[in-house]
């Protein structure tokens, strides 16, 4: 009984105590709500930031498990990753973080360039995705293909040489149909989102943590 109280009912109470004032602050003009809202949001940010230590612990455990595998090229990477992660943290903290230009340089050349190279891979992946997906197997696929095609050529320089109106046409599709479609997606998603949150508040949702 007490286990249920501590692990289910009290967390739910905490959830409601956070949820109600923040939601009502948006609608009602009550000064006290405003300060509660600011305080709770600050708390939430701080808790989210502190969660990085859990992430660090989690990945350390993962790497540690990897170092125990005796397969070729498995444990070496576990050791490498642990050393690099902690060396980075120690170096960054000793340099003073973002205000140090030496740290920034390393950050950009290692992280920035990795990121750019990863994003650069998207171009290649689009090739195979297009080859696999843009096959007119049924009407749905044909519709997807046709419209992807129009806007895809709309940006290409040779598109406007084939037909001078192409860029304008593709722009029109983006402004008209795409905007309408994404508007419908947004509106419907907002209804679904609110309904799901209400189910959590009413403890109807089976999955997740605040369970019924």
């Amino acid at each position, binding site marked *: 009984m007490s286990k249920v109280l501590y692990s289910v009912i009290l967390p739910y109470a905490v959830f409601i105590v956070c949820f109600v004032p923040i939601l009502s602050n948006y609608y009602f003009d009550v000064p006290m709500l405003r300060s509660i809202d600011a305080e709770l949001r600050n708390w939430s940010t701080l808790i989210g930031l502190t969660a990085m230590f859990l992430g660090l612990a989690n990945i350390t455990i993962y790497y540690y498990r990897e170092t125990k595998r005796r397969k070729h090229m498995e444990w070496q990477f576990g050791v490498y990753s642990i050393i690099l992660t902690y060396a980075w943290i120690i170096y960054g903290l000793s340099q003073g973080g973002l205000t140090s230009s030496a740290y920034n340089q390393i950050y950009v050349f290692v992280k*920035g360039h990795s990121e750019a190279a990863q994003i650069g891979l998207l171009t290649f992946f689009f090739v195979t995705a297009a080859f696999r997906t843009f096959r007119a197997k049924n009407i749905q696929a044909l519709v997807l293909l046709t419209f992807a095609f129009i806007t895809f050529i709309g940006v290409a320089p040779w598109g406007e040489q084939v037909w001078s109106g192409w860029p304008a046409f593709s722009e029109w599709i983006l402004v008209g149909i795409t905007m309408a479609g994404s508007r419908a997606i947004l509106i419907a998603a907002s209804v679904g989102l609110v309904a799901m949150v209400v189910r959590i508040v009413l403890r109807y949702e089976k999955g997740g943590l605040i369970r019924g």
Partner: protein
Amino acid sequence: MKKEEGASVTIWSKALSVRPEWFWLIALILIIVPMAVPPRVPFKVNDSTLRIYEYVKKIPDGSVIVSGGLGQWAFIYETSAAFMAFLTQIKNKNVKLIIFPLSTDSLMFEPWAVSVTGFDKVKEYGKDWVVLNYVPGGADIILPAFMTNIKGLCRTDLYGTPLEQIPIFKNVNSYKDITLWVDCGANSIPSLARYVAPYKVPIIGFVHSAYYGMFQPYIAAGQVYEMTNGIRGGGEYEKLVGYTSWNLGTITMDSYQLYSIYILALVIIANVGTQMLKREEKT
């Protein structure tokens, strides 16, 4: 007859199950070839890019331009084409450039852009251009402080020299001394519109094509003067200033030419192949 049909089945089914690595290799070649032999495909210059070019051309002597943006390194690449074209355009004008980075990535990116375009060879550091150090705290806090009191917010430049010792800051104190704000970043326009536009400092933005449509309302509301449309806008700007040493926009447009034809060919092959296979299965 039958044998030939069998052969066509294997051709199409083979074509449809080629390992993806080959497609990627061809794509890589098609991207690299135009870089080696630039064909410089012609394309129209958009009105908004033209307006930016004309605006910068008419900037009076002795103006102070602030370049400040935020975004991650990899995402700034797309807008860097237009930014470097802009640097090339103001290289031979009598203007001063203050780089005020809003994120650590732009702190490293913008000085690099300056060195690539050769801006630093023509202009003198400290007198004509300067890089301020990054101030943590987020755009919401540091932008308003910057607009009212530059020296109070940024004590030193990137290399640790106090601002009082830098000649450019003799006459530059606050928003009153800024002629133009240029943004080379990924998504800084909303914060700039909120904190810079109220001081009547004109803003020129080099933005991603994904955001170009999204940020149009800021232009309509008069908060932002004009924006370039992603990498294509960069290519147009480069064409207007007569090409830069980085030239990313033009090269990307060239590569896109071949790349898009390649995708087109692949889609046609995939569709014809699927239809042929379907027909073979029926018989």
